[in-house]
């Protein structure tokens, strides 16, 4: 890890307005994530975890505050510039996999390269290595509907890594798979940070998964509970569970 944050926010606020009702989902979130760090964000349903990920990736715009990726503010970027930035620097892993049903495993994984204008054939070795790394080489010509949930999530991880993004955002990646598969997925994410130097931002409900991170933040009522930031040896299942209880999550 280095001192320069790859991702940082300052006083980030998101307010949703429906008619005359307003709902403040995030209220002044300030955080900074170092390169290669594995940051876990926990919180109750509806606390704004996913909204935070959407804001960090530029899928939604904040009501106020600032977001810096690699030192560059993304506030004010056009939709196109934001998309290009996301394409280059951010990988996504979703709870529901979100694989394209008409593409094979290999094609789904190669998709970010293709979107970026690269010829997937020219990165064959890279793609093969990725598939081997996530353990789905033998399924590469299969379609998503022919895969199990675990296999789909492996494909999703491989796809998120295809562009070698600086940041990987994982939104409850084990939420839709069994315990054993979930552990395997978390092992892969951990390896992303350790072996590939990628920054991982994990959103989860699962204390065991959260314990894989370098740092754990708890989001409650739209703010980060400042007294409950776990780092280093504090990041363990027991401590996380205790925090959750104390926060009434």
């Amino acid at each position: 890890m280095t001192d320069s944050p790859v991702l940082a926010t300052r006083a980030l606020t998101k307010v949703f307005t429906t008619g005359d009702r307003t709902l403040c989902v995030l209220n002044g979130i300030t955080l900074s994530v170092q390169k290669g760090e594995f940051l876990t964000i926990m919180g109750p349903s509806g606390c704004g975890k996913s909204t935070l990920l959407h804001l960090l990736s530029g899928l939604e715009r904040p009501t106020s505050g600032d977001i810096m990726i690699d030192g560059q503010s993304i506030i004010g970027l056009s939709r196109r510039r934001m998309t290009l930035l996301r394409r280059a620097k951010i990988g996504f892993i979703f709870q529901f996999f979100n694989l394209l049903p008409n593409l094979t495993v290999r094609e789904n994984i190669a998709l970010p390269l293709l979107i970026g204008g690269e010829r997937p054939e020219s990165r064959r070795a890279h793609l093969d290595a990725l598939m081997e790394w996530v353990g789905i080489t033998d399924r590469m010509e299969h379609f998503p509907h022919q895969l199990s949930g675990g296999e789909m999530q492996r494909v999703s991880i491989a796809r998120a890594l295809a562009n070698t993004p600086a940041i990987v955002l994982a939104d409850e990646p084990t939420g839709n798979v069994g315990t054993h598969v979930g552990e395997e997925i978390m092992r892969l994410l951990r390896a992303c940070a350790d072996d590939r130097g990628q920054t991982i931002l994990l959103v989860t409900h699962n204390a065991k998964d959260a314990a894989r991170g370098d740092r754990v933040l708890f989001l409650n009522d739209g703010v980060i509970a400042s007294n409950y930031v776990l780092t280093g040896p504090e990041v363990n299942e027991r401590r996380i569970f205790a925090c959750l209880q104390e926060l009434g999550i």
Partner: protein
Amino acid sequence: MNAVFLLAFRNLASRKTRTLLTTLGIAVGVATAVAVFVLDYNTLITLKIKEITAYGTPDLEVSTAAGDPASFAADLARLRSKSYVQRVTPLFFGTLSILRPDGSEAIAVAGLEQDASGWFGGYHVSAGHDLPDSGGHVIILTERVSARLGIGIGDSVRFAERPDLAFRVIGLIPVWLLGQRNNGNVGIIPFWDGWRAFRSQAVSPFYWVKLNGTATVDAIRADLGPDHTVTLPPHVLAGETGDKKVMRDGVRVSGLLTLVLGLYLVFNSLSMALAERIREVGLMQAVGTTDRQIAAVFLVEACVMAVVGAAVGLIGGLVLTRLLMLFGFSSLGTGTRVWMFRLPRERLVQVVVLGVSAAMGGAVYPLLKARRLSVVEALKQRGLRLEIVLSRRLYALLVAALLIALPAGYMAAASALRIPWRQGLPLVVQTALLFAAFLSLIFLAPSLTGRLIRAISWPIKRLIRCEGFLVERTLSRSTARIAASLGILTFVFAALVGLKHMTMSLRLQSQRWVDPAVGGKLFVSSRLLSPAEYARLTAVPGVRAVVPMSHTIPAPFLIRGLPADGLRYGLFSRSPDLLRRFTSTPALLISSQLAHARGLKTGDRLTLSTNGGPMTFTILAVTDEYGYFIDERFFGVMNLATMTQAFRVETSAANQFVIVLDERADENRVKNELIAWYGGSFELSIITGGQKRAWVIGGVTSDFRIFDFILAMTCLLAGIGVTNALVIGALERRREFGLLQALGVTPAQLGRIVILEGTVVGLVGGVLGSGMGIPLARIIVDGLALVSQLDLTFTLSPRWLVMSVVAATAISTAAGLYPALKAVRVDVAESLQYE
């Protein structure tokens, strides 16, 4: 509000685009069918009124073998005693020359009884008196003859044919009904006295009959026996015979097919909608909604769209009809000006009911499929796969039904209409096979369609890698989603290719015969002119010969008697020996069309029944250089002297002529000279060969203009269909679009992907349409040649094949614009948030 209605209306309102496009699909289909049927109905009325106002309104015409007044009177009495006869009146037509101090003036004469006016509407007296019951030597003249010759009521006229008899003028009629004949130069005399006085000038007398009850023509023919000929009068036959009937049937069937296309679009739209909403169905079941209630929700939705669509279609169809009439369209092309606007209520109700019920049916079928799914299945699946809703079994059944029903239906219809079916059956079977093959390719062989999509997408993929790749993969691997769009485009553009090749073959065929038939000639109509009068036309500079065209016999085909001295041009000028044989032996020339239709050739011999018994004629040549005057293409030409002798044709006057020009004469200059010299006194109306040629060639295009309108409507439907499919696809694929954007696809790229999907669908549809259009065009040309007996040849036009692909691609690409906009507007975060 009842829950069913609440859900149905909420669904309609929340899916505005789909609701609008589906309703529009029904509306366009219904509007086209309404426009076609209303236009056809009014075309027919216009034609009938045109015939009635030039003739009268008998239900039947009966001619008899009785040749003298006594036996004719007995025959008339017998006819009057028939129970199916309400009224009958005898009549004859002929030509007489009114004696003038400076010569004579030929007029058309009708021998009538008073009933011909009152009961049959053949004429109306505008001044003076009608014919007396007692007959006598009296005459009613048209106002034109009266004014031109200065003969008024109370004056007497004498005829060159019987100068001993004086006919007192008792009344005048306008140039209307029978008064229109011979450019309005008509006299009406009492039937019996007229016939006795002018038996040799009277063309065979016959009867006009008004019928009682519902006796059929066949029954009447059987009752009257072989001594009588029973025919339908022109106003009954108007638009109901020969090529006019074929044309009208073609237009009506095309209109109906457009409606079917619109309804298929609705069926497909509702099926796709259900596939998209299957989770909603599962949820409704889970919260206790019964199958019947769910069905009711979907049926109410379909019903609302169908009723609104049909109502809009009905009004739109009527507006379209008025517009088509305004631009000179009729169901017989643009040659007939329709000026009536009446509504065929029964047919309109049928179209609307068909539209509404088929749309409802379109909702029922996918519902039946959905009912087989369990609640859990429905809730688990993100969408009922289209392959399940639009099952292959349905299309397999359709293909099988087509293969059996089309030939069987044709044979049944042909038998019912007493049309020989053997000749047409191979074409019908070919049509069934062709449609079955393409239906199978599109709906039953997704892997083949997929390969075609991949092949066609290849250059796009090379050009725009990311978008091309995604489009190719999406389309080639989900052919069920685009099958309906492909089907609509394929059939619409196959029809376009077929129709354009048909008109092209007609145009080529016209070009072959029209030059010798009309080149270097003027076509002249006039009042009846005596030979001495029309001979004066040759004095005009540039006129080589004046050939009277009025002398004809109708059987066994139209034969025109032409004076040999007027035929010293063309073939006869090149072969004087042929002219000698034409004048000295029983001989015929026949038109190329007649030769083709009857399989006749030079040297063949034909035996015709003449007044002197059977006589054998030799066909000297097949040529279009002699005998063509108006639309008739199937005719023979005989020496007028031979005709007069063998058939006792009356040749004292003529009112139609072909003027043959000197080789270097300018047709317009000669025309102007003729008008200047004789236009007023002879009442000349002249069409030049150049005008005639332009009309014949242009007529091929204008005759089929109505099909262009129908094709335009089907193209519109195809556009709506593709848009609808892409919009429903865009709704269903919100998550995919969101994901692509999350992965870095820019809005412009996403828009291009959706538009390119439309483009590729259009390209594939256009290629399939062209591919199907070639054999279809061949079948259409062969079919038309069979029906019309025209010598048509199929010539492939790469231009129309390319045009078809380009048009399909353009329509489909345009159809992708709105869905692309919807795709770009997808809220990425929201679309990815939920399962």
